[in-house]
């Protein structure tokens, strides 16, 4: 039984009927890779699933229960990583993470410390985010993602701005997440280096609904 099921999703943006009757299921331990050319609607799909954009119609089932994408309970099991890293420029990386994770009620200093180490972010975690490079910010955001221990990850181009080591780390973290029974939906243009059994793919074509590929 799929943990997450999306049925009959229609979304308009402005005049455009961006997603037309999209259906998708993701089970525990599965990653759904969302591909599609620029403007196909990947970002739109993820933001609708977070409840940040309104859908024209959508039937969402999460853990066997029908729910709205704005339900608090559903949000508690979900983490969203957008195009831009959600960090305050005036705070340090550490302070940012502390706030973000406290807000979700999962702040644990040691765990975050270990994750910073692993993502090579400890070095600059005490500097204000304002003075970090694009890739460094991205790494902090990834620490926040993993540390929030959500079951469902919604990632929008998670490898942007990352160097090759960083890109490898992302796939590693993703694999581990799936092994632990997590779910992920990842919009990306690069191919993900994940066990094929755990990987599904959804190809969006501009405005014409979605084709299921694998």
């Amino acid at each position: 039984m799929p943990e997450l099921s999306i049925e009959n999703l229609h979304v308009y943006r402005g005049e455009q009927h961006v997603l037309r009757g999209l259906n998708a299921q993701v089970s525990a331990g599965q990653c759904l890779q969302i591909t599609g050319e620029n403007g196909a609607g990947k970002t739109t799909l993820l933001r609708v699933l977070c409840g940040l954009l309104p859908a024209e119609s959508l039937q969402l089932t999460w853990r066997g229960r029908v729910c709205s994408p704005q339900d608090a309970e559903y949000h508690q099991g979900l983490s969203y990583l957008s195009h831009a890293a959600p960090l305050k420029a005036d705070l340090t990386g550490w302070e940012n993470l502390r706030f973000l994770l406290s807000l979700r009620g999962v702040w644990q200093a040691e765990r975050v410390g270990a994750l910073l180490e692993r993502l090579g972010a400890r070095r600059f975690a005490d500097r204000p985010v304002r003075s970090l490079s694009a890739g460094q910010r991205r790494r902090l955001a990834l620490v926040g993602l993993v540390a929030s221990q959500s079951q469902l990850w919604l990632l929008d181009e998670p490898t942007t701005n990352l160097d090759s080591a960083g890109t490898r780390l992302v796939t590693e973290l993703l694999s581990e997440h799936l092994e632990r029974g997590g779910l992920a939906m990842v919009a990306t243009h690069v191919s993900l280096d994940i066990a094929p059994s755990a990987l599904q793919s959804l190809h969006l074509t501009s405005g014409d609904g979605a084709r299921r590929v694998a």
Partner: protein
Amino acid sequence: MSEGLHTQEVSRDTRLLPKCAAIVVRDLQLLVRRPGQMLQILGFFVVVTVLFPLGYSPELGKLRLIAPGVLWVGALLASLLALEGLFRDDAEDGTLEQWLLCGQPLAALLLAKTAVHWLLTGLPLTVLAPLLAVTLGVSIEAAPGILLALGLGTLALSLIGSIAAGLTLGLRRGGVLLSLLSLPLAVPVLIFGARATELVIQGDSPTAALYLLASLVVLAITLAPLAAAAAVRIGLE
């Protein structure tokens, strides 16, 4: 790996208060990082109050008469200016999105945010007001009354402004529109506030006007966070 267990197993702190506390702590940190923000608001208040005698008349006798108007208009404008950044900064860097996704009632989080905002701008404005009143020829005895009136007034303004701040989130330069939208709601506050201050300056009892102000505050606390939450959701789309 030990870094992640899943929601079913994860012990998650679901209480609301620690989250509000986290917001307060973060905003205080931000203030320490850039105290300029608060000082600028105060500076603006001082400047408006000082400009007026420049454009009008230097006689204290005349100034005393216009003191309530000047103080209140100054405080109103300063509060509205300060409110522009209330949610905008957080929206622009993407952190506000995370508030919506944290599974807590948004209205409560926004109320916490508005409250700390008032503490950091409205309260200092209030404390400054009696001093400025003195430069306009008002006697220092009027201080307690002025403090009370402006304290209540700025609190109501912050709450009212939070709605407009949410509504103008999607706009690039919402500042001016924010003032315009808040104004119809702010007029009663201004009128009662200025009335109370005038009575205080004349040495009369402002109790009735203050009660009305206080009831406006209560009304605003009940309704504004809900409207602000709805507005923020729409503004972030």
